[in-house]
């Protein structure tokens, strides 16, 4: 027994040491993030929304296109928690299905913008010179391209396709990200520690990935939290043009648009989808702010 006890003690002593061993930026950031209640709340809420979206086909009380024309637009009740729309379709079901689309568009397009925008901007800013000029002129040209026409052309060539929608939105969103990152990198490039990295014989690739990008994460995260709502609203706009989600399928943006048209007669049609969208965006912002603080070692209180 004493032996076992000793072992137990040793384990108990080793455990915290091992937990603290995480020295990577991300592990440290995660520890700090876990202490931020708002951010954790936001994260849990988002995870909950994602889980809902994934489980929608099993959770939804009705089919998203099941109409009850006799009922028409009915206020919230025990049978229809969020009421029904003008065609008698259950709004709660439609919000669930709409969330699938909106979250998917939001995350996918933002993912594209993050991946492409950050790398592109970092390379343009760090390499500089002619490479920078050429890369940024390409961005300028794409900026000048009218978005609607761009999407219409895509649709004409490739047909209607959700993946295409993600790509199209992502393809526009990365431009601003690239500009922001490039600007940050230009000032960072003059930093002594980047010179030090060059003097230590590190490759460009290593300097960009390991020294430059971690240092621009703050602004990147802030901009990302702004991008997601932007993207969701863009999707609503495209759907309104008939280029995005097709009726009877729906998204939050479409539901809000439809609700806004009839808000004087049936306010719940605007209220509930807006609530879903704003709650998600709030959660995103809290998580984003928390992440930004957590990723900056200097902001840590210890």
């Amino acid at each position, binding site marked *: 027994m004493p032996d076992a006890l000793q072992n137990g003690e040793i384990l108990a002593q080793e455990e915290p*040491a091992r937990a*603290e*061993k995480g*020295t990577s*930026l991300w592990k440290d950031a995660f520890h700090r993030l876990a202490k931020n209640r708002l951010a954790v709340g936001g994260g849990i809420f988002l995870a909950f929304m994602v889980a809902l979206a994934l489980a929608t086909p099993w959770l939804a009380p009705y089919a998203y296109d099941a109409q009850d024309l006799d009922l028409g637009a009915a206020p919230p009740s025990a049978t229809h928690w969020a009421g029904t729309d003008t065609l008698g379709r259950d709004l709660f079901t439609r919000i669930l299905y709409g969330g699938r689309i909106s979250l998917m568009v939001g995350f996918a397009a933002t993912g594209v913008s993050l991946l492409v925008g950050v790398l592109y901007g970092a390379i343009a800013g760090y390499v500089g010179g002619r490479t920078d000029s050429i890369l940024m002129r390409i961005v300028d040209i794409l900026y000048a391209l009218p978005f609607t026409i761009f999407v219409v052309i895509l649709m004409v060539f490739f047909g209607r396709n959700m993946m295409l929608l993600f790509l199209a939105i992502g393809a526009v969103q990365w431009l601003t990200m690239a500009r922001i990152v490039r600007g940050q990198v230009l000032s960072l490039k003059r*930093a*002594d*520690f980047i*010179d*030090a*990295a*060059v*003097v*230590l*014989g*590190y*490759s460009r690739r*290593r300097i960009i990935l*390991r*020294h430059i990008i*971690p*240092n621009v*994460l703050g602004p990147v995260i802030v901009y990302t939290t702004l991008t997601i709502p932007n993207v969701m609203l863009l999707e609503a706009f495209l759907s309104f043009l008939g280029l995005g989600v097709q009726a009877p399928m729906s998204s939050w943006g479409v539901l809000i648009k439809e609700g806004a048209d009839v808000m004087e007669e049936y306010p719940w049609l605007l209220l509930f989808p807006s609530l879903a969208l704003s709650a998600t965006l709030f959660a995103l912002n809290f998580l984003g702010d928390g992440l930004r603080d957590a*990723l*900056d*070692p*200097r902001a*840590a209180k210890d």
Partner: protein
Amino acid sequence: MPLLDVDNLRTWFYTRNGVVRAVDGVSFHVEPAETLGIVGESGSGKSVANLSCLGLVPSPPGKIVSGSAMFDGLDLIKAPLPVLRSIRGKRISMIFQDPMTALNPYMTVGKQVMEPLLVHDGMNRADATDRAAQMLESVGLQDAAGPEARMRAYPHQLSGGMRQRVMIAMALVTNPQLLIADEPTTALDVTVQAQILELIKQMQQRLGTAVILITHNLGVIAGTCDRVVVMYAGRFLESAPTRDLFYSPRHPYTRALMDSMPSARMPGEDLYTIPGLPPELTSEIAGCPFAPRCAHANEICRRRPAMLQEVARCHTTACTRVQAGEL
């Protein structure tokens, strides 16, 4: 055989206001394990001369117009980038003036000391971690919470002196043959300066590293260097063993520098300053660059180029009047 042999190096900057001759024909060499001091005012080209050797002069506008820098049989000036990269941080390292900004704020110091090992020595993480921890200990980075905590500290948690120790650890962790220390103590408190210089000296003795110490502080030179060269307006004016330079400075500029040291004056006495300003480097200087400020300059000084010539054993100076025995 010298470790580094720089010959007739000229690094010019092609700016909108004309060609700045930041380094204009300097030659020097560093023997293995010795310490060479390069002293000069701000803008005299001492940093640029060393950056040129590592291919670190921003180009454009900078251009190495002529010269060679032989390092172990290889001309660093002509070496292609991949070769230079394999030398930087591995065989020649550098530490910077301001340790507050020369460390990556987003990386723990442990990671930063490990990185050269991972890049240059192909070490695995476990070995590199051990070696980095050892190195941090030997540069005297202290942490009450133990060596583990030392590795995990972020730069902002350390004082200036401690950060400079981390820089030294990073620079020396790969056992380089040459360390270029560019004003390593300028940004530090006076009390810490001495500690850092002592540390560089200790590490140098332990590892057999040659050091080029760039500074504008003659006091720093006196305590650490074997040989000194005095740089002014992109050229070398004098070169001598440290003792000789301090006890018998030959060049009027060197003498003026010595006189400018506050310790050379009695309390209450006005401090000595050299009249005038260093010359504009955008126009070609025909004679001795110091002539316009020199109390002993004559017509010849202003017209005839001044070349380094030996005036005593191992002691060279570029003053034509000293060479002629007139001063």
